[in-house]
Structure formats: C-alpha cells, structure tokens
C-alpha cells in the first residue's frame, strides 16, 4: 500500500489538483453560466503562489491569500460580466484565459518571461493536499444539496422563472463567479507548490480543453463527476501508454462523444443504467426534463 502511494505520488497529487479545477468549472456551468474564467485564475494562482513561495512566505499564509484574492477579483469580474449572457460571457472569459499567458510572457523578472518560474521549493505535502480537497468537496457537496444548489438548477432551466420564484439571480451569479475563481486560484496555487515549476505555456487552450473534459466527462451535475473526470484524465494516459503523443486528440474525441451520447456524463449514464436495472421508471434525462413545450 505504502509502496503504491510512493510510486504513484505525482499522479495522485495531479488527480487531487485536477479535482479542484474541475469543480471550479462545474460551479459556474451548473448555474447555466458558461464561464471559463477559472482556467485563467488557475494560471494566475499558480504564478502568485510560485512567486510568494520563492520569497519564503509560509504556505499557510499563501493559500488563504490566493483564495481570498481570486475570490474577490472573481466577484469584481462578476459585476460587469453579470450583464452578459451565454456566448458573450463564454467569449469574454475565454479571452481572459488567453490573454493571461501573453501578460505573463511580458512580465519581466517577476514572471520569468517565456520560461516561467522553476525550482520552486516544495511547499506542501500530499497529506495536506488531500485534506484541502476533502474540505472543498464537503463544502461543495453541502452547497449542491442546499438552497443554493436548487437555486442554481432553477437558474439553469429558466432564468426568468427562477427570478419569479424568489431566486436572487444576480447575487447567485456573483457568488458562483467568486467561488469558481477562488477554487481555480486554489488549484493553481497548489499545483505550483507541488510541481515546482510554472510556465506560460501551461495555460491557454490546452488547459481549457483539459478542464472542460474533466468537468463534463464525469458528469457536471455533481462533485462526483469532477472526481471521475479528474481521475480519468490523469490515469488513462498512464494505462494507455501508446496514446502518448495523441493525448489531446483522445481527450478531444472523448469530449465530443460524451457530449453527443452521454449529456449527463458517465455518472448520469451509470445512474440511468441502475435505475433501469431495478425496473423502476428511469429518472428523466436532462433533455427529456427540459423538453417541455413552450
């Protein structure tokens, strides 16, 4: 057991960080808000934590600081972005993700230009990483089950209806934005502490593809889906070594296939299978649920 952990420690750490990133995307997607901003906050968080660790700040201080700062900036972002709907929002946040590498490359000594920052001292253990992820999952699962989870589901189905039922739409949006940004920043900060190098090439399109694959393939309706997604994305390339150079291609294909045939993700597919095998009426899939004649 111990041997297994030490052999695969990097992969386990990777999975845990990715779980956070996937949850950060799900939090907004679940409210029907197509925001990809948390990818940008991941990159920003990783740089912030890299710089602070190099200046000998203690991680106990850095992590709350990064979470708080990304949350506040995310909330601030929410203000102007709350007016945008659908594709405009997707586009604005995507542009945010794509411009950050440009700024980092031009950041001079502070960000290390195109090379990034490397030789960051190892600042965190797998144990504390695990604790952080568990705490986040507990918090998120409570949010999912609670009032805010139901409000965000209502928001996704019909914004005007949700508003008429007393959901404070704008506030929910800001909150989702802030939580998503804070989680993205946290995941980034942890990744810099664990993997000891950050570079501008890590952000951008590749990370967006990866993040969305994780958030969607497992199932975006629950944190369990995020865990499944992060696990698959990290471990499948290890099992299928020959995939190596075609990693991105496989992710891309999987993403398309899942979107086409399992819109509720693998989790949704499994749930439906279970419901059917117990000879109970299957819970309506998303498409059936929302195919109400207007």
């Amino acid at each position, binding site marked *: 057991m111990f041997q297994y952990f030490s052999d695969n420690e990097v992969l386990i750490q990777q999975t845990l960080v990715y779980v956070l990133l996937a949850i950060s995307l799900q939090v907004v997607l679940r409210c029907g808000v197509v925001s990809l901003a948390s990818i940008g906050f991941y990159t920003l968080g990783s740089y912030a934590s890299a710089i602070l660790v190099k200046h000998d700040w203690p991680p106990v201080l850095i992590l709350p600081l990064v979470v708080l700062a990304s949350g506040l900036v995310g909330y601030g972002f929410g203000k102007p972005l709350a007016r945008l709907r659908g594709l405009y929002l997707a586009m604005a946040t995507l542009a945010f993700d794509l411009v950050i590498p440009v700024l980092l490359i031009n950041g001079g000594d502070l960000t290390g230009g195109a090379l990034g920052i490397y030789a960051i001292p190892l600042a965190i253990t797998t144990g504390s990483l695990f604790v952080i992820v568990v705490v986040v999952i507990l918090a998120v699962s409570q949010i999912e089950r609670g009032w805010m989870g139901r409000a965000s589901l209502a928001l996704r189905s019909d914004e005007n209806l949700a508003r008429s039922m007393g959901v404070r739409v704008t506030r929910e949006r800001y909150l989702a934005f802030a939580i998503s940004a804070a989680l993205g920043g946290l995941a980034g900060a942890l990744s810099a502490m664990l993997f000891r190098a950050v570079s501008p090439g890590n952000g951008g399109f590749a990370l967006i593809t990866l993040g969305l694959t994780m958030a969607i393939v497992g199932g975006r309706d629950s944190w369990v889906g995020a865990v499944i997604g992060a696990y698959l994305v990290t471990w499948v390339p290890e099992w299928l070594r020959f995939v190596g150079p075609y990693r991105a291609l496989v992710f891309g294909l999987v993403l398309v296939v899942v979107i086409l045939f399992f819109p509720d993700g693998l989790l949704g597919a499994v749930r439906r299978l279970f419901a059917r095998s117990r000879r109970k009426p299957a819970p309506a899939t*998303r498409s059936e649920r929302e195919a*109400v004649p207007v």
Partner: protein
Amino acid sequence: MIQVIADSLSLGSVYVLFALGLSLSWSVLNLLNLAYGAQFMLGAYFAYVIGSHVDWPLLVVLPAVMLIVAATSVVTDVLVFRRLRTMAGTPVESELSMLVASIGLAAVAVTLVQHQTQGESKFVPRSVFQVKTLSFGDKLHLTNMQLIMLIVTVLLTIALAVAVKWTRFGRAMRGVAVDPATCELLGVNSNRLFSTTIAISGALAGLAGVLLAIHLNYVDSTMGDPLLTKAFAIIIIGGVGSILGAAVGGYLLAFAEVVIVAYGPANYRDAIAFVVILVVLLLRPSGLFARQRWERA
C-alpha cells in the same frame, strides 16, 4: 505613416475574412465555434500539403483548399452540431454543448496536424505563390500578397453583404437566425441552411489561413489560437452577425496592432484584443454597430 496604414489594411483584411466566418456561424447557428482557429490552420496546412505535392498556382490552390475546409466543416455539422442542436432542451444547454464539442474538435485537428508536421513550422512552397515586394515611391513598400489580401477581402465582403441582404438565401438565413421553427413552417430547410452557413464560414477560415500563411511564410499547428481572440474582439466591436461591423472592427484592430508594433511596446500586441473586448463589453455590450435587438424569453 502611409506605410502603417497600408500594412494595417492588408493585415486587417485577413482579420476581416477570419472574423466574418466566425460571426456568421454565431449569428445564424448560435455556435461559438472554437474549432474555427483550427479550420484556419487546416487551410494553411492543406495549402502546404498541396503545394509540396503538385505545381498548382494560387488560383487553383485557393478554391481547392476552401472546398476541403468547407467539406470538413459540413461533416462536423452533420455528425456533431446538428445532433446537439436538436438534442438539448434549452438554448443555453445547446450553446454550451456545441461550444464544448467545438473545443474537442479543435483539439483533434490541432493534434493531428501537429503529428503530421512533427511539431515543426512549415511554409507554403514558392511554386504556389512567389511573394514580390512592390515599391511605390520611397515611402511605401507592399508585397503583391498584401495587395491580393486586400482585394480579395473587399470583394468577398461586398459579395457576402449583398448575398445576406438581398438574396432569397440571405433572407432565409436571417430568418432562421431568429426563429428556425417558424422558418421550417414557411418551407425553409433549416438543416441544409445551417450546413451551408457553416460551409461558408469554413471556406472563409480556410481562405484566410492560406493568405496569412503565404504572407507570413509560416504554417504551424497552433497558428489559429491567437487569431481566435482577435476575432472575438472584432465581433465584439462590430456586433454579432454584422458584416459591416466585422469589416470596421477588423481594420481598426489591425491598425491598433500595427501602430503598437511600430511605435510602442510591440510585445503587448496580442493583449490589445483583450483590452478591446473588455472595454467594449463594459461600455456597450451589444457592440458599437449593433442594431436594437430584443431578447427572446
């Protein structure tokens, strides 16, 4: 200064071509096609492949490439996007799933080309087109490619504007963008129209790819990514679906970039697009040239 204007006119032409296709598929299909940068790259890549096998001139290579890229986009529409349009219950759902699918498709195309080129950058062979510099007096130097980019763009933009405004096809296209169900009742084959639109947008991406690849003498699997942000900025300036807006936006953005490269901190050229997006979205979310548009509940 006259050189700056000439350079921004030619660079802006490619931006306009590129943004037009993206804007078209967005306004008609509600599809923010993130595979669009990959289609642009495919255009450049196929020009390189064709050019290194046969001795065809640009006049043959261009239509061939446009046809190939248009065909690939029709295939993706029939296999993927059509299904997603009909499957999802709410517009928000289908927008999201199409967006995600297009990211997946982009990853597939980029990885394939990356593998084919072994990650090296290539160029379109001279047999396709010989770039020559033409001098107009002492102040102004242009390549023949820059002139071609400008002329092709102006002609195509006008043709597209006329087609969308005055032909039967254009009317149907604008109608479907607002309400596909009603258009179906009126005898418009909306699926065919969507496929045609996506084919036109693919052809424009491919065309822009070939022209820019020859102009910059450079073909690479990731060459489409930076352009995508620029196209976003252009669409935001011009408003979704507006052809005139895309033209103005494309030339404005190119002008700003050429100016900052000539006189300012050149490294920040790729950040301009983002600043534009942010400022316009904050001050005038519907775009500078957008007509009044009301939201459907």
